[in-house]
């Protein structure tokens, strides 16, 4: 395609900023709405501590909203900042902007959605036991901070894509930029949702049975670490594509190679991320109920999460085969 540099630039800005804010807003909006709904339900049960619940809800929503703010920052960056030499811009710059949008758009979706559960469950815990509010707020913020990490990975990858894009137009390089963004963004989606569910389960457990605070928090952090695995696989593949790719096949074949790898590792990470989160959420609640059996529950949780992660590892193998073996 022979387009003017100016046309490529405007097309890239439109596509990148649109994808970033379109997808990036969905997760935070659902998650924060969920938190507000649970807070309302909790205030209905215990109207006496409504001020504390409102404060906790707002803190939790502010942390979760951070995901949408990342998407907003990248979207504005894409729209406002243009490279110095406009004459050399081509399809590669368009692809880099679109990839950055895909990365931050999908990447913040999961974190925003996930951060709603701990915030809502913290308010529900207040309604059960108003005296425990500092520990609930503390565990909520720790859990949300870990759940935000996939969106920070996505932020890093999208900034690298925007700032290091090459000049010119060639199909394999365009494929690399779009695919690196897709691999990072979609794989972060599952990890964000899973980590958020884990934090939600832990805060719920602490709200119901507050005596086992420390051991529940430990189980939560281990569970969240396993949930982050697909996002780390996605980031690994994105970095391989951007910095460690050998010679790709020319033309359509090179594009197909990287795009196939991105779909495999990206979408392949969604299920294991969410599944590990479902497991860890129940594991945290069970630990809070029976802290004396924490080792047994942790063992079962890790076995279950490992089996759930196996499909993410298959997807990583297929992606690496596409990148290195088939070429």
């Amino acid at each position, binding site marked *: 395609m022979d387009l003017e540099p100016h046309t490529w630039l405007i097309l890239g800005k439109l596509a990148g900023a649109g994808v970033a804010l379109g997808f990036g807003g969905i997760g935070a909006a659902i998650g924060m709405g969920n938190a507000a709904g649970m807070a309302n339900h909790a205030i209905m049960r215990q109207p006496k501590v409504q001020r504390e619940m409102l404060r906790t809800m707002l803190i939790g929503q502010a942390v979760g909203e951070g995901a949408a703010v990342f998407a907003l920052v990248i979207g504005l960056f894409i729209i406002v900042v243009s490279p110095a030499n406009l004459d050399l811009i081509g399809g590669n710059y368009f692809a880099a902007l679109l990839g950055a949008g895909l990365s931050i758009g999908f990447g913040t979706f999961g974190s925003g959605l996930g951060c709603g559960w701990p915030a809502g469950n913290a308010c529900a815990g207040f309604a059960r036991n108003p005296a425990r509010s500092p520990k609930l707020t503390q565990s909520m913020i720790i859990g949300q901070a870990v759940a935000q990490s996939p969106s920070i990975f996505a932020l890093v990858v999208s900034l690298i894509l925007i700032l290091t894009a090459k000049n010119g137009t060639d*199909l394999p390089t365009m494929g690399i930029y779009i695919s690196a963004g897709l691999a990072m963004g979609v794989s972060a989606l*599952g990890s964000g949702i*899973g980590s958020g569910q884990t934090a939600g389960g832990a805060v719920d457990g602490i709200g119901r049975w507050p005596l086992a605070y420390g051991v529940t928090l430990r189980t939560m952090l281990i569970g969240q670490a396993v949930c982050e695995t697909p996002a780390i696989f996605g980031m690994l593949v994105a970095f391989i594509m951007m910095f460690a790719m050998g010679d790709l096949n020319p*033309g*359509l*074949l090179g*594009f*197909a190679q990287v*795009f*196939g*790898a*991105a*779909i*495999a*590792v*990206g*979408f*392949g*990470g*969604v*299920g*294991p*991320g*969410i*599944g*590990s*989160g*479902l*497991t*860890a*959420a*129940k*594991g945290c*609640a*069970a*630990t809070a*109920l*029976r802290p004396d*059996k924490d080792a*047994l*529950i942790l063992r*079962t*949780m890790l*076995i*279950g*999460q490992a*089996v*759930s*992660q*196996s*499909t*993410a590892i*298959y*997807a990583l*193998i*297929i*992606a690496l085969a*596409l990148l290195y*073996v*088939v070429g």
Partner: protein
Amino acid sequence: MMDPTTLLTLMNAAVAQAPEAAEAGISGAALIKAGALIGAGICMGFGAIGPGIGEGFAAGKACEAIGRTPQEAGLLTRTMLIGQAVSESTGIYSLVIALLMLFVIG
């Protein structure tokens, strides 16, 4: 009705352009190979979603049940692993089909 000389000129031009189109990477063989590569990615990527969520769901319920009745942990873990193995089967089908597309068709 087109002048025969013009028609002949146009046909010659079309024949002369055909090899160039093939060299630009749009030949049938390249298209099949590209389709196989993207297909393998779609197959393994989307195929991994279901087993991942399903196995996590099974393991979550097992953790919940062990929290309630820790003395039955052995039985519950065995049931969890059998259920997860069945759920894993579709992930393995996807893996096999993706490998077939990569190395047999591609």
